[in-house]
């Protein structure tokens, strides 16, 4: 999907919970906060964390200059299962 959108000339960035999977599937740009799958954009109702993850992810659009990079983000959410 990301690749399809990128192919028509629209830059994309993906928030990944599973960076190895994302690398394997050929994502052009991604960030990786330390989150479980299902909360890629951060802990439920943690507005501050979600805001930070989304903002820092978008910032990478202006920073990244070559495909295939996955930028770790300094946010951590450990779900209590």
């Amino acid at each position, binding site marked *: 999907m990301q690749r399809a959108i990128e192919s028509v000339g629209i830059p994309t960035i993906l928030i990944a919970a599973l960076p190895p999977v994302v690398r394997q599937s050929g994502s052009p740009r991604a960030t990786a906060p330390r989150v*479980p799958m299902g909360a890629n954009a951060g*802990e439920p109702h943690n507005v501050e964390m979600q805001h930070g993850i989304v903002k820092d992810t978008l910032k990478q659009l202006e920073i990244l200059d070559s495909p295939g990079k996955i930028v770790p983000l300094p946010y951590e959410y450990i779900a209590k299962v």
Partner: protein
Amino acid sequence: MSLKKYDGLQSEIYVPITPQPVWAPVTKKLKDMKIGIATAAGVHLKSDKRFNLAGDTTYREIPWDTKAEDLMVSHGGYDNSDVNKDINCMFPIDRLRELADEGFIKGLAPTEYGFMGGGGDIEAFTDKTGPEIAKKLKAEDVDAVIMTAG
């Protein structure tokens, strides 16, 4: 030490191939960009048709001004408990609207997209669903797309 070399030697273990890179350059500043959301998390309007959990390559359109409480998830491939508490965990539409209010981005794309990722008919996603969504985003002059998947 010299090593023996064998031409054409291959691993017996299946090694997946990473596809060729794709890259659309960023030409605008964030404050001048209309940002869309595309998520593989199975997000859709509560009033819309649910995804078939056994496999579904269709997608749902979500207007930019949809209230978070009017959205839900149908996806059989991950633990939905966080996203059921707060849709923004996978579909950060409230966060994006705040960033637009701050002036950090220009605004949201008029339409956001939800589909059910995590495998299924990859060929249909690659050949049909992906290009269809991409075409619609292009037609609405979206400058960049933020995604959640994987």
